[in-house]
């Protein structure tokens, strides 16, 4: 039970150093689930979470897929947005200035070719408000780009190498869960100089609308997210954490502080809240508060002491 010495949440040291970025607390918001940030300003002070990862950016603006783009599934949702975004230049010119000072912003990058990826990384480098980059090498619903990079070790290596050369910013790589061996992909990223890996992106999935006998999504295939995928995400984070030394950002189905603590125990140094932001615009803040409360109540004055502390010896684990 871990001596439940109830100490005031305020007494917990929540700071984490995450692949070259220092965060007030380990809770970020996941790319594509938090808009460009300003949309949440009516609900809470963004400076109270660790940081935000913005919607993935491409070189030019992209307009995304026709409807239907989303659908509900058991304890989850499917999406095929098609990576609609304002493009890297508009992000820098219009979106970043709209954010309050003091919120670390990680810019997520997506493109269809290595050199275009590199170009987006270049344009984001040196921009005052950008604290780091997250390469989205794992978009499961766009034919070109993402899926090949994230699912093929050689391609992934090429991509990370190019991005590493293109930018001096802290470089995170977001991994696809649609692979046989996620640990191998994490090793590839570490080998090419990535500062951290984020996982997981959505699981490639499909659902059918029986009324029309068509896929529910116009794009046919989509990405599954939400609580349904949490156990798969925890498994992959645990496997990646045992494979690499660089820090890991855990993502997948996090709704509460307790969910997030599970990711820390499996080896994630920070987490990202995704789908939960839609159901509850205060989700990220409540997750951050929930982690702090849990740590305080269970006698962990420093969150860093929770990272990777899963007791995974077979003996007596039952």
């Amino acid at each position, binding site marked *: 039970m871990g001596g439940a010495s109830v100490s005031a949440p305020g007494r917990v040291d929540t700071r984490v150093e995450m692949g070259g970025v220092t965060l007030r607390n380990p809770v970020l918001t996941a790319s594509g689930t938090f808009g460009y940030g300003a949309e949440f300003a009516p609900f809470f002070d963004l400076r109270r979470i660790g940081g935000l990862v913005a919607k993935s950016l491409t070189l030019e603006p992209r307009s*995304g897929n026709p*409807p*239907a*783009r989303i659908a509900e599934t058991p304890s989850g949702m499917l999406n095929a947005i098609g990576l609609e975004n304002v493009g890297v230049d508009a992000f820098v010119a219009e979106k970043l200035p709209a954010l309050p000072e003091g919120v670390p912003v990680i810019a997520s990058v997506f493109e269809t070719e290595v050199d275009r990826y590199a170009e987006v990384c270049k344009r984001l480098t040196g921009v005052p408000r950008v604290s780091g980059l997250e390469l989205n090498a794992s978009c499961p619903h766009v034919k070109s780009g993402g899926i090949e990079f994230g699912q093929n070790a050689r391609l992934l290596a090429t991509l990370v190498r190019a991005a590493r050369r293109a930018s001096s910013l802290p470089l995170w790589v977001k991994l696809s869960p649609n692979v046989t061996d996620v640990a191998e992909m994490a090793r590839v990223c570490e080998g090419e100089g990535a500062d951290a890996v984020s996982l997981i992106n959505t699981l490639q999935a499909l659902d059918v609308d029986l009324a029309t006998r068509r896929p529910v999504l116009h794009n046919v295939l989509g990405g599954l997210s939400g609580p349904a995928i949490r156990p798969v995400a925890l498994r992959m984070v645990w496997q990646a954490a045992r494979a690499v030394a660089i820090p890991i950002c855990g993502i997948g189905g996090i709704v509460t502080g307790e969910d997030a603590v599970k990711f820390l125990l499996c080896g994630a140094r920070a987490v990202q809240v995704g789908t939960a932001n*839609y159901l509850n615009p205060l989700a990220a803040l409540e997750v951050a508060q929930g982690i702090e409360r849990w740590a305080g109540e269970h006698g962990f004055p420093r969150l860093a002491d929770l990272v990777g502390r899963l007791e995974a010896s077979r003996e007596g684990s039952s």
Partner: protein
Amino acid sequence: MTRPLRLDAPVVENRDEGGPHRRLRLRVADWPGFEPGQFVMLSPGARSEAERSDPLLPRPMAVYRAEPCDGGALVEILYKVTGRGTTLLAEARAGERVRMVGPLGRPFPAPPPERPVLLVGGGTGIASLFELAARAADAAPVRVLLGARTAADLMGRGDFEALDLEVGLATEDGSAGRRGLVTELLEEALDRQGAASVYACGPTGMMRRAAELAAAQGGSCCHVSLENTMACGFGVCLGCAVPRRPGGFALVCCDGPVFAAEAVAWAGLP
């Protein structure tokens, strides 16, 4: 724009309105007020002590009206039980709490005083028009045209009839008002009255026809309120996009749900 809230609002009543229709009244402390055409996101079913993640997504529901009530307001939703979420919502009992986020979305623009106002509602779309009717009534001559398959489907009919304005009805089976489509009533009204401010909410085909009729009647303007599946309701998931004219996409939740009819790419709607 009114600043949205997120709260777990106590159910004051959740009344059976006949057939699949229900009237939900939620007590909302420090309700910021709302504009006609705005909506809220309601999580399906009452919130239990125990978290449940299925069904996951909240459901968009127009704010039907809101009465001030000690400090806050009683926010009223008129809804139809169609699937899982609304079935669970209909099971919520007085005293239980329902999670609400809102008010959200771009409202109907206030009708200019110089032109008569024509509101055209069908199906659950009727609910999006009530507050507009109630407010416009003071400003300009308002005529409300409601249509449905049969009389029982005319959601909120009594409330509109209680307002001091003209109400025209059309049902496909003739069980109330004219036998036929509500857009036939619109056509006649436009012929009679000439240029008007037309506001339509209902099935896509109905709204599209209303837009055509308004366009044909020089000097008229037409606004429609669209529907689409939503995950967030405030512009961050990009899931509710619909094609817009001349090109690109618009988000129903924050560029809409109300759009100028000219901006809608009807063929591409879900």
